[in-house]
């Protein structure tokens, strides 16, 4: 059967294209605009080529926050993904307790970022906060406003508390979608619990875990509010992640060119990592 070629339907996409260009492409282009120019007062702009990009990439400050950013994202992914899967595996499959667990799990996800930051700030205060006080009472020297280690510990713990649930919910949904006959067949085949996890559950979770990984990567790579409220990037610069640094540079120092270049580098990095990960994860998949 011959299909008639008719591409007129593409015109229907035009309104969407118009809206997307207004809300995404135009703002992005202003950033591109800043990133290649030097600004003086009175709206005087001079073309600078790639100077800002070179400067940003060469600066120790950027490299340091980038390193901090990757360390943070790496650590929270290494904790949240396995932990989320483990929790999802141990949750009840049905009945009232399944619902109770799901609601409890969703709670942290419903709390706004700045509230989470403020909560943990108070929670972790060494003299009056429950966590801070308890740790100190147990003999740990803990003060997140003064010690880099304590600050990192608190930021990571906060993120794990806030976002592991997302991985749990995705993994739980993935687990529920596995047909019973797989478990039955595994029992007939005499498979151990570990074998069931390795050969049935994990392969079936691949897609949701890819999604969870991407979401958590993007989100944690762009994290701003929570550490900003909790530590303000300190002590010193020890918890100054990329976005905090970017805001400092753009709004604190009004360094528009450098900030524009940094934004673009930042954006392209996120895009690149996501693309790489997705391509690798989906390799060998039919369709």
């Amino acid at each position, binding site marked *: 059967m011959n299909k008639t070629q008719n591409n007129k339907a593409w015109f229907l996409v035009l309104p969407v294209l118009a809206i997307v260009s207004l809300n995404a492409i135009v703002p992005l282009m202003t950033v591109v605009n800043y990133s290649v120019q030097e600004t003086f007062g009175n709206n005087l702009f001079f073309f600078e080529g790639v100077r800002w990009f070179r400067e940003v990439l060469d600066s120790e400050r950027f490299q340091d926050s980038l390193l901090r950013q990757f360390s943070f994202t790496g650590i929270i992914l290494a904790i949240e993904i396995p932990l989320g899967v483990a929790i999802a595996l141990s949750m009840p499959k049905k009945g009232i307790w399944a619902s109770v667990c799901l609601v409890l799990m969703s709670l942290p996800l419903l709390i706004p970022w700045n509230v989470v930051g403020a909560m943990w700030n108070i929670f972790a205060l060494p003299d009056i906060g429950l966590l801070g006080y308890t740790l100190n009472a147990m003999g740990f020297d803990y003060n997140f406003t003064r010690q880099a280690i304590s600050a990192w510990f608190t930021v990571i713990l906060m993120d794990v508390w806030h976002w592991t649930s997302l991985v749990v919910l995705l993994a739980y949904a993935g687990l529920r979608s596995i047909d019973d*006959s*797989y478990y*039955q067949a595994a029992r007939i085949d005499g498979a151990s619990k570990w*074998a069931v996890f390795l*050969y049935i559950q994990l*392969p079936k979770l691949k897609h949701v875990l890819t999604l969870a990984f991407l979401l958590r990567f993007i989100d944690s790579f762009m994290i701003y509010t929570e550490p900003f409220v909790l530590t303000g990037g300190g002590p010193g610069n020890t918890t100054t992640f990329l976005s905090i640094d970017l805001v400092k540079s753009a709004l604190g120092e009004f360094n528009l060119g450098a900030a524009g270049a940094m934004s673009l580098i930042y954006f392209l990095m996120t895009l690149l990592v996501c693309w790489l990960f997705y391509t690798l994860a989906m390799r060998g998949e039919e369709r």
Partner: protein
Amino acid sequence: MARIDLQHLKHSYIENPMVEDDYALKEVHYTWEDGGAYALLGPSGCGKTTLLNIISGLLRVSEGKILFDGKDVTALQPEGRNIAQVFQFPVVYDTMSVHDNLAFPLRNRGVDEDEVKRRVSETLDMLDLTKWSEKKARGLTADVKQKISLGRGMVRSDVNAILFDEPLTVIDPHLKWQLRSQLKLLHKQFGHTMVYVTHDQTEALTFADKVVVMYEGEIVQIGTPEELFERPSHTFVGYFIGSPGMNVLPVNIEGRTARIGGTEFELAGTPELKPGVRTDLGIRPEFIVLGEKGIPVSVQKVEDVGHHKIVRAAIEGQDISIVIGESASVPADPHVVFDRERVSIYADDWRVEMGG
């Protein structure tokens, strides 16, 4: 290989079953002989799969006992029962190759690698899967996947029984025949006890030595295909086996005389009836002769199904089907005669014997 005794099994999915209808499986008491090929036949929801899962241990039975060769296995998990089961829809381990899929049940049981290789390549050969051996199971078509499932069921030589739960549902018709013959061959070769669940009578009748017909959680008849056809012990069996099914007509019995509406005729014997039961007469469409003598019928339509014709007619307002030869024709004033020896009488749906 084992003899399997099912002793007074009853199963309910409800926690505290009160009435008979709460049971998905009502009182099953039966022995599967060692090395027998059985088919469990019945409509959807009649308890076939429940019974199968109870035998394999996937379900813990509510009441009763299961013995393998005299040993009580009621409390054992499937892995302890050494049973193979093939499910309706293909279950494969996506990330493993076809070879590893088949090797999986063996490796889990610590069989040494040389033996694994030998058994797996034998099974692959038998199912014509050798050319896929090194492929990942994920991308294969449904019928190859189902062959893998079958292979995993058959790869262990020492199993007590192999259970099949409608395994050929997803297989193409032309492959179905071939696979069923292979299963049959396998059964002859290794003598495993095999139980095959299906709702397709052709499948059941061609696969099994003994067909077990289930209806609403009960076994209504166990017999050879011939017995099921000639002497259905329950009206359901008569209706379910054969195409078209047996004609079942409400009848009044007095001694040897049967009366349908205003028509009377003699039976081959006197049915042994308890008073107050509902009586039906069962006669297969194949055993009715259409001619110009006997009971008058009105013919509604004639369906030509190729090798014979099916006449849809009515006696005293009751629909019946009659099978006639491909070249036979319907007379102008149609009458029918029932083959007396083939008439069965049913009391409350159960067949009664004819007395002298």
